[in-house]
């Protein structure tokens, strides 16, 4: 009798402990992903001009502040509430019984939502009206991001098809980047960026930019490995170790490839593109970090690094869309690339592993669907904001700096 009892007790302690370990893992990962915010802030501040530094810092700060609250109040339910037609989650007051929420999961998802929003701030930097941006940030974290997120992670239609985007190459990064693309296109280039030819507008502090990229690399371990959402038990343990390794190798591959390509193409090894190369590798591996081999991770990173250099040039010189920090390429193009490459390199279902074209097709469908959603909603939203509160600061403000005119405060004295 006593023995059985204690067996039950032990059993439940064991289960509790292993659950606790999972939660600890998710929470610490959430903290790491939260720390990506200063990573973005430093990278974006470093890649833009000193006269707009307070503005870009402010946007990054507010993305997280606003996102934390709006995702808590609305976004989370839209993303993870009980599924309505594969398209959207139910808001709590529509649910029959108020659902139990796992706060650690909520925290983890909150920092993801903020990441998606933050990506946009880079693409539209140095010319966007601050209060307009605030509205934009609220809508993104409360509605746009959660809905496409629901499709993949909330039990929506894409997940049912078998679409694989483990930690969000598309769900998080591409969504942010495609919105940034629309934003940058509608707002137009910075004054002086294109007069006849494309001009370089160098960032003001590459030390901050490099710090930002290193911080992002660090935080990405939480982003990807945290997405396993568990750590206890040998399956999970193997998975998170695997993810750490693939994440790191792809980032390294992206770094080296961007270095090499930019070196050959522009005669000199440039820091700014090498930094972006690391991020390209990280974004690209995010979708398949759990399901590709370490060797494949290196290849994915290299492909991302190569793509990066050409995509940055293409968007700048051919499309003439002014993206001061390269966000569209890094998060959008490389996010899509990484999502597609899952269809090729996935050890389970990938083209190279005899899975045929099925997974690849589904991945392509997902990439397109998510892009269409992000581009479409962002187009409506930005056009609306343009007609109402206005998107762009006056020329004089842009020329003399957003910091002084919009915020009445300079970053440097």
């Amino acid at each position, binding site marked *: 009798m006593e023995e059985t009892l204690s067996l039950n007790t032990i059993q439940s302690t064991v289960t509790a402990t292993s659950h606790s370990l999972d939660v600890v893992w998710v929470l610490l990962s959430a903290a790491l992903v939260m720390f990506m915010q200063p990573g973005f802030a430093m990278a974006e501040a470093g890649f833009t001009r000193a006269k707009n530094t307070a503005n870009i810092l402010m946007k990054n700060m507010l993305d997280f502040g606003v996102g934390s609250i709006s995702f808590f109040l609305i976004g989370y339910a839209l993303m993870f509430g009980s599924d309505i037609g594969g398209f959207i989650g139910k808001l709590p007051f529509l649910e029959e019984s108020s659902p139990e929420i796992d706060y650690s999961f909520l925290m983890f998802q909150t920092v993801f939502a903020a990441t998606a929003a933050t990506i946009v701030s880079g693409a539209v930097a140095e010319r966007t009206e601050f209060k307009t941006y605030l509205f934009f940030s609220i809508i993104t974290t409360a509605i746009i991001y959660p809905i496409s997120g629901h499709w993949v992670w909330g039990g929506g239609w894409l997940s049912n098809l078998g679409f694989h985007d483990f930690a969000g190459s598309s769900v998080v990064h591409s969504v942010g980047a495609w919105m940034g693309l629309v934003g940058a296109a509608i707002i137009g280039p910075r004054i002086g960026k294109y007069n006849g030819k494309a001009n*370089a507008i160098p960032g003001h502090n590459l030390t901050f930019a490099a710090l930002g990229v290193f911080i992002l690399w660090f935080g990405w371990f939480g982003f990807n490995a945290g997405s396993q959402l568990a750590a206890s038990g040998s399956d999970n343990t193997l998975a998170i170790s695997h993810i750490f390794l693939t994440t790191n190798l792809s980032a390294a591959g992206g770094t080296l490839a961007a270095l090499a390509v930019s070196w050959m193409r522009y005669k000199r090894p440039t820091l700014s593109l090498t930094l972006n190369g690391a991020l390209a590798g990280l974004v690209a591996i995010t979708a398949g970090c759990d399901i590709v081999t370490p060797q494949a991770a290196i290849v994915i990173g290299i492909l991302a690094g190569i793509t990066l250099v050409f995509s940055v040039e293409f968007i700048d010189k051919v499309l003439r869309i002014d993206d001061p920090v390269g966000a569209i390429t890094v998060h959008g193009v490389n996010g899509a690339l990484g999502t597609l490459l899952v269809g090729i390199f996935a050890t389970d279902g990938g083209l190279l592993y005899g899975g045929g074209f099925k997974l690849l097709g589904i991945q392509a469908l997902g990439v397109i669907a998510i892009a269409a959603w992000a581009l479409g909603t962002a187009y409506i939203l930005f056009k609306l904001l343009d007609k109402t509160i206005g998107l762009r600061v006056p020329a004089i403000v842009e020329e003399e700096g957003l910091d002084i005119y919009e915020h009445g405060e300079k970053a440097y004295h």
Partner: protein
Amino acid sequence: MKKIEAIIRKTKFEDVKKGLHEIGIDYLTFWDVRGVGKSVEKRVYRGVKYDTSSIERTMISFIVRDKFVDSCIVSIRENAFTGEIGDGRVFIYEVLDAYRIRTGDSGDRSLYDEE
């Protein structure tokens, strides 16, 4: 009194300062400037080539009694010289008057210390 203004390479500043010191010039003022000239840097930023026809230079400015002018010019030309494009220039101007704030001295008297 004359004002001597020299635009030189940043890396030559210490030499020029030492050279001037040797011929008795103890006071001078300098700051960073950027020069547009023939010396041009080709750079690439994120795939976009741009030539900054502007490069970093140091501007030295000091006021001396007339008798020192020639030796100053010689000294600067020796110490700032590399022979490569971008060595810079020296310009001379008239000065109407000078005052030393701490002592109240004016004119030539303000330019040197009691022996």
